[in-house]
């Protein structure tokens, strides 16, 4: 190509040897620059191929368990989802995620998504549809699936209760406690517990909380004989009653015949990560699996 351009300009006006040498060097330098810059940008595929860029994503992220390609392609990396989250659960990935740079993720152990926004504001804020708008209620989302990873570490399995701050006094995570403040999340450290049997993962599960609230409302409605109206109120709050349970404490028998309780993850789990966040055991006994959702569990 350099020959061609040289010939062409020669036809117009012969170049001095010095100019010719300069343009040859410029061409070589430009080629190296092209290869260099494109090469560096393509290095971004390494974390993607290695799977180290796979993380818990905000509600509605378009992805299949092992393939986030579509999500990375559609995300414009603006962080508008980060800005609307009331518990600051969403963070943006850095350069070590390669092509995933600037893409939102959630580190559940540090701060999970507790749906305290009610209306899935992150989904509404997304300008490109990377967080799909085909999502009306928290229970519709498919972020992952909880799994009791270390059953022996689980306090309920050990038959132990829990007293104090779930994650210690220095923990900065937030949760919305409806009984404290309907609209504003508060620090988990400001809300100590005193439980005979630890059931924090069930107690704080946003899906379970909603189911309980719906059940109470239904009971009230039945008492007053006005069920239709109550259903509409629930919808107005943007938190329609979840159709299925996400996590419950179920009894099981030890080899010695003793009965204990353990958390069992149910079909309604959306993978928000609150159970992983609130688990007082270090490191968490219950974690979120990213490669599983209720849609991919099968059966």
């Amino acid at each position, binding site marked *: 190509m350099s020959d061609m351009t040289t010939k062409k300009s020669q036809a117009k006006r012969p170049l001095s040897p010095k100019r010719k040498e300069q343009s040859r060097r410029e061409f070589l330098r430009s080629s190296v620059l092209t290869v260099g810059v494109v090469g560096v940008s393509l290095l971004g595929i390494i974390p993607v191929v290695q799977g180290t860029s796979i993380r818990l994503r905000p509600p509605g992220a378009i992805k299949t368990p092992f393939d986030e390609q579509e999500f990375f392609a559609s995300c414009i990396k*603006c962080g508008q989802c980060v*800005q609307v989250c009331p518990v600051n659960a969403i963070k943006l990935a850095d*350069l070590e995620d*390669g092509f995933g740079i600037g893409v939102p993720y959630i580190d559940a152990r540090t701060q999970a998504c507790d749906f305290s926004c009610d209306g899935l504001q992150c989904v509404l804020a997304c*300008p490109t549809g990377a967080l799909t708008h085909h999502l009306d209620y928290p229970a519709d989302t498919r972020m992952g699936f909880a799994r009791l990873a270390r059953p022996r570490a689980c306090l309920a399995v050990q038959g132990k209760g829990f007293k104090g701050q779930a994650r210690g006094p220095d923990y900065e995570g937030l949760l919305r406690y409806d009984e404290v403040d309907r609209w504003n999340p508060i620090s988990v450290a400001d809300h100590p517990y005193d439980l005979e049997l630890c059931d924090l993962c069930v107690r704080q599960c946003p899906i379970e909380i909603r189911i309980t609230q719906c059940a109470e409302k239904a009971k009230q409605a039945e008492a007053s004989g006005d069920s239709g109206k109550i259903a509409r109120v629930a919808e107005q709050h943007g938190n329609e009653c979840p159709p299925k349970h996400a996590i419950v404490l179920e009894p099981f028998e030890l080899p010695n015949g003793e009965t204990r309780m353990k958390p069992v993850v149910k079909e309604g789990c959306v993978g928000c990560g609150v159970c992983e966040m609130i688990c007082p055991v270090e490191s968490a006994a219950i974690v979120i699996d990213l490669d599983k959702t209720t849609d991919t569990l099968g059966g």
Partner: protein
Amino acid sequence: MRYIRDSLSQIFGNKPRRPSKAEQPPELLEIYQGKKGNLSKADVEAVRHEHHTGCCNKWQRRRWITLILVNVLFVVSYYFDVQLLEGALTASRFVGFHMADLNSALQVALAYKHIVLNLVIGTATVFIMWLLLGGRTFCSWVCPYHLLAEWAEYLHLWLVKKKLIKNHTFNRKVRGVFYVIFALLALISGYTVFETISPTGILSRALIYGPGVALIWVGALLLFEVFYSRRAWCRYVCPIGVTYGVVGVLSPLRVKYNAEACHHEGDCRKICMVPHVLDLTVRGAAHDVNQDVGADCTRCGMCVDVCPTGSLVYEFKGLSKLL
């Protein structure tokens, strides 16, 4: 028509075409003829001195203030949760109204192959906005990397002056090559590959959401520009500039050059970030007595500031008579 053709040609790296004498109007030739040997060095110095005693760096100051304000507005909006300008430079909402960077939107569209309505609204808004304000105005009036690179450029020029380093140029056509490569990469790979290394996106996010490892890449780029090649990223690589440049071809905001006042001493070309657009200030290179600087111009206004005779001025086509 010639403005559009020449602008596009320059954006994609061709040298500005010099007109033959036959193509230049007689008034222009007369002006060139009249200036031959008429100005002594002392005359030029006198005019320069007069100019510099007045104002200096007026446009540069306004530009830096604008650039910093826009970026601070993003930061403040998030930090104090005032919802004025949410998001980052790649896509944002200004008082609730969607805006999307044209090049980021293009990359997403090519990679995702599906465009949602909000992105259409955002892209159209920005397209119209930059159609009015001028395409590459984005580069020097908004882009945070531009400001850092401008300071790196001063350092580079100082080092060159001290003869500590040499500037290495590249072929300007390489920017067009990058543009095509990054568009193809997005289309074929399905990833917004350019975003991985875009210092505009990285810096904008770092300012708003806090610094990260990615700043090392921005630092490396700046070092490359300081020690090896003057303003390399903006001049030879960045596809954002190309996208805005192409939009800017139709923009009514331009820098107008008047050949009559010009002394051809070349101060403007020395400070210009994209000096090829000012080739028309060379004696004998203009097509007309009054000619607009091509759309690859970032409208930074440094030439307007530095020109001792006011032969380079901002102009908003069709409005200048009203203003």
